[in-house]
């Protein structure tokens, strides 16, 4: 049973990954990645990582991919065929891309040798012993206990990193006023004197006083 499920999920994982790399339209690439992530969550479940699998489906395949779909719908981006991509612009681009493909193949061979040719004997086993229970390996209780005791520092640093990333994304994607448009038809108010220029405030976002 678990072997059948493994091969089905692994086929989904690999075909989803191939879809991301090969499909021409970026929108379809995002959908292939969603399929890949859901199949990967099945593999996580088979590895007794219930909490990580749930996080994968809810946060990754749910939230992050919605962000991607929004940006793809906003930006669009031209679709490109595989042959066009491998040819690239001019002889240098085509050579570089072919070199990239060869490098990726070499990376795969090297990774397979490194992972499967290790001296680890446990690699051929099914893993450590496992007994089901409310506090068993991989359950939310187990992961939560680890996160809030041994890995508390990593947890806090990760949350701070998320804060920095959110602020950074707002600063990067905010609406900027052009340099030539400054100071035309502007009504100076006390609030505009108090706030520094070009800091991405809400007033600039709606086009006032940029």
């Amino acid at each position: 049973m678990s072997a059948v499920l493994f091969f089905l999920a692994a086929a989904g994982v690999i075909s989803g990954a191939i879809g991301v790399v090969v499909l021409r339209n970026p929108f379809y690439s995002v959908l292939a990645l969603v399929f890949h992530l859901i199949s990967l969550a099945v593999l996580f479940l088979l590895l007794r990582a219930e909490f990580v699998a749930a996080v994968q489906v809810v946060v990754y395949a749910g939230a992050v991919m919605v962000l991607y779909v929004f940006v793809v719908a906003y930006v669009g981006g031209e679709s490109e065929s595989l042959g066009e991509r491998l040819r690239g612009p001019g002889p240098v681009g085509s050579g570089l891309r072919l070199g990239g493909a060869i490098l990726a193949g070499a990376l795969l061979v090297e990774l397979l040798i490194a992972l499967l040719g290790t001296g680890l004997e446990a690699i051929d086993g099914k893993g450590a012993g496992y007994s089901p229970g409310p506090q068993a390996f991989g359950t939310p209780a187990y992961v939560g206990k680890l996160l809030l005791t041994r890995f508390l520092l990593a947890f806090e640093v990760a949350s701070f990193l998320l804060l920095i990333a959110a602020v950074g994304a707002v600063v990067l994607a905010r609406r900027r006023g052009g340099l030539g448009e400054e100071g035309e038809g502007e009504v100076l108010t006390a609030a505009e004197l108090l706030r520094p220029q070009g800091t991405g405030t809400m007033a600039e976002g709606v086009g006032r006083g940029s």
Partner: protein
Amino acid sequence: MSIAWYLAVSAIVFALGALGVMTRRNPLVVLLCLELMLNGANLALIAFSRMWGNGDGQILAIVVMTVAACEVCIGLGLIVAIYRRHLPIDVDELRELQG
């Protein structure tokens, strides 16, 4: 299934992601392929975590997911900023930092 099978799948996913990063031109798809590489690493982490019956690998996988979310956030912000300035959405054309 033995752990080795999971590790083989993770290596294949990582190499496919690397292939995409090196050959695709659309920065959105390059970001998607970076996600693929991170997912390959995550699968290996969780497989090793299962192998030893130790939860540390799962915690590291969750931290990797957080970092991936931050990376997506910043990357998509950059792409929207590039789009707003009417620059081409193409990693071959964006060569201002090349010197």
